[in-house]
């Protein structure tokens, strides 16, 4: 079975590299984008199973990306996990309203993040989620 593909959107190349190592170790494929504009084009091209999205991005911040994903028939069903340095008190509610599946503040606990990824991709390899 093919590994699920996760799109990492963050303007910090070091953090993208770290997430890639972490996700690969947990049997996920990754693709990357460094700004809001390319996030959409990479998503269209790669059809990821899940997107990890930063909020503070050049060329269209995270909220713009969420909006454009929601507006697109092809992309609106992809679950989005927001991973940002911004304050949850003023951003968590807003991102969930905008269509995100979950909100994490950086630095996030690796296990919690992976748990949510596994729960969000229930049929994913290596078959950790419950069949629905």
């Amino acid at each position, binding site marked *: 079975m093919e590994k699920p593909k996760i799109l990492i959107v963050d303007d910090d190349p070091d953090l993208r590299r770290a997430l890639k190592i972490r996700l690969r170790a947990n049997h996920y494929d990754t693709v990357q984008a460094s700004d809001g504009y390319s996030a959409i084009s990479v998503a269209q091209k790669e059809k990821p199973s899940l997107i990890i999205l930063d909020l503070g991005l050049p060329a269209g911040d995270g909220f713009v990306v969420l909006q454009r994903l929601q507006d697109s028939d092809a992309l609106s069903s992809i679950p989005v996990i927001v991973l940002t340095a911004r304050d949850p008190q003023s951003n968590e509610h807003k991102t*969930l309203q905008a269509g995100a599946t*979950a909100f994490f503040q950086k630095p996030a606990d690796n296990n919690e993040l992976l748990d949510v990824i596994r729960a969000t991709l229930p049929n994913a390899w290596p078959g950790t989620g419950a069949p629905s």
Partner: protein
Amino acid sequence: MNNGDTHVLLIEDNPGDADLVRLRLVEGDSAVSVSCVNRLEDGLASMTKQPPSVVLLDLNLPDSHGADTFRKVLEKAPGIPVVILSGQDDEVLAMKALHQGVQDYLVKGDITSHHLERVMRYAIERQALIRSLEMSRKQQLEFKNQFLSHVSHELRTPLTCIHQFVTILLDGLAGEVNTEQRYHLGTVLNSVNQLRAMIHDLLEATRAESGKIRIEPRCINIADLIQQAISMMAFTAKEKRVGLEVGLDTRIPFVYADPDRVLQVLINLIDNGIKFTPPDGSVMVKACMVEADPNMIYLSVSDTGRGIEPEAKTLIFERLYQDPNSIDNSRAGLGLGLFIAKELVELHGGRIWVASEIGNGSTFSFTLPLYSLPKLLFPLITHEGQLRDAVVLLTIELTPVSSTPRGNWKEICRQSLETLRRCVYLDKDLVLPVMGIVGTSETFFVAASTDVERATIMMNRIRGQLEAGAGFKGAGALKISATAVTLPSGEDARPLEDRVHAVADRITEMAMKALASKPSPGAANGDVSAATNKAEAN
């Protein structure tokens, strides 16, 4: 005030003095309009209706005398300059007036029109200066808060990178790590976590200072919460060989507080206790009721550390206070923990204090309000001095499907509660304060002044509204039921209040039973169950 005119409100009961002042004002060059009243009450009313540029105030009026007079005027409109025109040359009173915010104190006999005009002009100018100073102080505070919020955001980005790569190394994702390397990396990770906690505190303190912390009180079992705090701190305590003990009164009523915030306070105090207690000492967490204060619960965290100097006992709750005698000064933290704890406790309507003796440890105590259902129920289940005919307890249970993330679920629960509140009649039904800690499933209760039959209509309405709510579809299952509450019989001769108490106790008991019988997490996956409808025999 129109066209830049000076509008003077003269509060003066002596017609001769009033005419004289009016004359002095009109003699001057500038455009002045004067309204004159002879009672303080009329003056205050006029200030609200049409705020004057300046108030000229006699102190001895038919309805007010002396310092009381200017105090009331200043209280009414702190932004309007006040000049006192007094018959007495009383320097002590004049000073007192200036200290409280009056702009000037003139003695009636000395006034010339030129003089009065100038005094008024300067008073207005000074008041405007004070206002702009106040504004810029507020702006500076706002700037400081924005700056701190910005800084803590920027600090998180590099910290995240360190955290990520240290955990990558520790987890062996970049190759084998030997024992010594693992030990060193563990130290780095500890420091990262400390830094993370400090950044969190920095933002939290800023929020507390600008009144931006919100609490969401629920009906909670404080013993559970203490147990949770203890288990969260067990590792830290064990590492330092400090014992952690709990002492609870046998019967502790429910508390009305925000569980996340109370946990934050407890963790903070326990962490401090451990920090300042030498190895082989102990930290004790207690909860008890105090006879003299029956509406509050008393919680305390005691340690066997070296205690606090008497002069530090009040300073310790201030921002940025750090113990100057701390043994491990390098890890003293930002000095924000107790400040935040104090703000959180006070937001709940409680207070926090410390008792300590050098050499004999410290005890930090705080109070939280108790949950009182009878008070909330009284207006709903009584009518013209009698209990209503029937009361029903609706149980609304929301269970998330396994893939719904916790953050999202909390939000759905919050929205559902708001929807629920809109579904009930405010004068006859009560959505009970939510009980327990936010868990996997969430249960809401409504006490409704109706019988089970009519409650069905209400249940359908609630179901329809909740299911239509944003985000709920696919995220959770909904179960609603109604149970009649046994009411004291008609012959019950007890006073109405006691009977309401009995109903409240019965409702609490029923709610507790419903919460206890909740299916274990995961068992209620998926399908939306139908409304069940049952009535209890007695």
